[in-house]
């Protein structure tokens, strides 16, 4: 599997494809650059994982560490809450994306429009279409796919990654201490 072909190879169709964030540093730079970031966490963060750890565990810690407000979609909300992250909003992904496409939408906390949106854990096809919608409908927004599956429609995407590589990339980018959970 190439690291930067769509994770579902048939999900092609763009002339512009996301640069892959191969190194933690590149992702960390985006996190630093964000003035009004948002992290969207979907239900598949509850099924992706390894060695007794789930993607949502890492992402919750990342959100806390970086101080990024979180939007929970699907049924990720309660799982975030038990990990100490109270979602700024619980909302269906499409509804959220539609608001994000409005450059005047004041964001999940009403503090002003978001500039960077990190997305993880929707099903692949849903994340793909949502990022396509934002690419076309929200040119003012930088989108970053944090799922372990390459998303061509994002502004930036992680490459296709197996769990250990994904784990270490996220941990490295957000500076999470490497203590096993």
């Amino acid at each position, binding site marked *: *599997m190439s690291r930067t072909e769509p994770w579902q190879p048939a999900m092609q169709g763009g002339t512009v494809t996301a640069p892959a964030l191969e190194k933690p540093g590149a992702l960390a730079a985006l996190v630093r650059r964000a003035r009004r970031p948002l992290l969207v966490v979907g239900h598949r963060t509850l099924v992706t994982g390894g060695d007794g750890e789930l993607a949502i565990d890492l992402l919750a810690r990342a959100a806390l560490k970086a101080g990024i407000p979180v939007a929970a979609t699907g049924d990720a*909300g309660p799982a975030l809450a038990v990990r100490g992250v109270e979602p700024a909003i619980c909302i269906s992904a499409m509804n959220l994306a539609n608001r994000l496409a409005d450059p005047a939408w004041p964001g999940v906390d009403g503090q002003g429009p978001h500039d960077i949106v990190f997305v993880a854990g929707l099903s692949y096809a849903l994340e793909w279409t949502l990022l396509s919608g934002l690419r076309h409908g929200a040119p003012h927004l930088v989108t970053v796919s944090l799922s372990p599956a390459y998303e061509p429609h994002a502004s930036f995407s992680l490459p296709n990654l197996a769990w250990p590589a994904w784990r270490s990339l996220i941990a490295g980018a957000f500076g999470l201490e490497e203590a096993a959970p």
Partner: protein
Amino acid sequence: MKGIDIHIGEIASPLGRVRELRVGIGRVGSGTWDEPVGPTPCPSPTALRDWDRRLLARYRPFYLPLCDLCCLCTYGKCDLSGGKRGACGITLAAQQSRVALLAACIGTATHTSHARELVSHLIDRYGRQFPLDPGGLAVDLRMPIVELVCGLRPETLADLETVLEYCEGQVVHLLAATHTGQEADPIDFESKVLHAGMIDHVALEVADVAQVSALDFPKADPEAPLVDLGIGAIDREKPVVLVVGHNVPPAVAILDYLAAHGLEGAVEVTGICCTAIDMTRRSPSAKIVGPISWQLRYIRSGIPDLLVVDEQCVRADLFDEARDAGIPVIATSAKNCIGLPDRTKEPADALVEALSTGAVNGMLVLDPEKVGEVAVRAAIRRRPLRRVPPSLDIEAIASACGGCGRCIRACPTEADLPGAVQAAGRGEIAALGAMLASCVGCGRCEEVCPQGIEVHRLMAAACDDCEVYAVRTGRGAIQDVEIREVGGPIVLGEIPGVVAFVGCANYPDGGREVAEMVTEFAKRRFVVCTSGCSAMAAAMHRDEEGLTPYERFSGRFEAGGVVNVGSCVSNAHISGAAVKIASIFAKRRLRGNYAEVADYVYNRVGAVGVAWGAMSQKAAAIAAGFWRLGIPVVVGPHGAKYRRMLLGRQDCDEDWMVRDRRTDEEVYVGPVPEHLFIAAETKEEAMALIAKLAMRPNDTSRGRSIKLSHYIDLYRRCYGRMPDDLHRFVRTKADLPVIQKDELLPLLERNGWSERPIPDPTLLPEEAYQ
């Protein structure tokens, strides 16, 4: 009126004979009907544009391009990304709407063509003057959608031809708008999508009323029989015929041939997809195998002795699969000839001989009656030759898996196939078998495996699916009396909603989720309707007492009923029920009065469509027909691939103003319903959405408080907290669920909530009212 056909029949004219006959009579109904015609009988594609634009101003399309490119003409491909226009000047947004229109046209054409073939066939068999009777004495308003849209009240099969001519003309107009260099505006494209959807429901109603009437299906019968569903229900000792598709005449001919020749019980007639449902409406002895996703596994099982395919949702490789399994095929539809030789005109004996000796693998027979005879006789002769497929050494085959992951990356449901296959390779085959429940049977995993592992075949081999479920067969229309009983409670909001689970089987996690949602909402005393593949999926679920929803809940259109209207074409009875509420309960005139009635349904009838596995262009058209009536539709995550959502912005107060007909003032009513078309990520999210989308501006406080309590409850189950938008749905304190009032009031006040009136709501200007 009878005089006319004779008169015309006598005239020497240049028209062809058959056509002339159809024509001279097809145009007129008999009897008188003096309801005045509304403003838009047989509306053109622009006649309801104003209504559409009102809806679409609230529910603006959010585009989700599947492709930056357009490849529709030889100027292309054009790259429409980054705001670029194509060589014809089109934008990406308009292009997405255009493709949506194309899909809606294909869907509507499919139903219209289906209806046309059905009506022509039934006229051939039963005569032009055969009366329409979808519900006996229980149904006076026989074709609410046709009456609403066309301003016609058909009485005979022949009258339906007039309706279909209208539908055909409209589809052609709409399709023409997708040509390069026609429509430029996305919202105008969307308006045409809505028009296509409206026409689609007309065609659906024509098709189902025709078949219910002529083929003596259950007529609006809440007690339609329970029938068997599942491979386990099949007596494999007998000869087995399998019918796949949607257009029931060949299947009916099979059943009729059996009956006429005293062979009932001697041959198992089994079906997949809507034909399966419809043939159990003809004869409860027919067996439903399952929805569309069962094609591969059932054919590969080798059980069917003969395969009859008609049209729609038929796998394109069915013939190859059947040949490999040693099963001869009869294709029966002009729309799916599969390259087979047309032997319609040959004598039945020759066809039986050719099929049963294996001289040919298949043939095209375009005469349903002949198919009936040939299929039965050939299946009986094939039975002794049935080839039981060798049992697979699952472990050995699976052990070749290198874990490359190509199968999961090809799988629409993103199932963890590599893990399950590798486990099976180690001898743990149960997990692999269990995955079949969430498999849509598409076969893509097999296409990509570098080891040549037929993953789906392996899953099927690992799963012993001998379960038998009970499903209530399609009852057809809703009775006028049922409408009279529930119309008030629905419009007042006291029945928390009507939820219809419709459409195909592109499920994120198998039919299980549909079954669970059906049960959940029935328990909550919504009126639950089902149709098509969803009706079958809903049956594949048992409660603690081992009952399927059809055994547990009543088949009445009532709070807590689970109403299988029938096959996909029966969906017209669901929209029809909403329209009938406007007519029977609220006494609105239907005839050619679309906008007023849609405005009524939109503001007052808390109906929600759920197409959890929506796959096809037909599903797109059906959904659009609901939208134009103001009925929101929720789809599963794959529904995002329809390329755009129609989403409201609950946070924009100005979007939610309506005119209060009592005061003629613009008043805020809150975001009800919040969206017209939305994909949900998970079942839990869908349920919270459904409960919310069932709210309507017209809800009484009692009704709203009931609806809110369901919403709050399902929202909390999904999100683990209180909804943050309650203040938008609560008009007065009386709207609050009593037992939660103390908990909720502070929440509202924190959001600056204040009381507001409950209006007599309309989106339309005064002059639009009749």
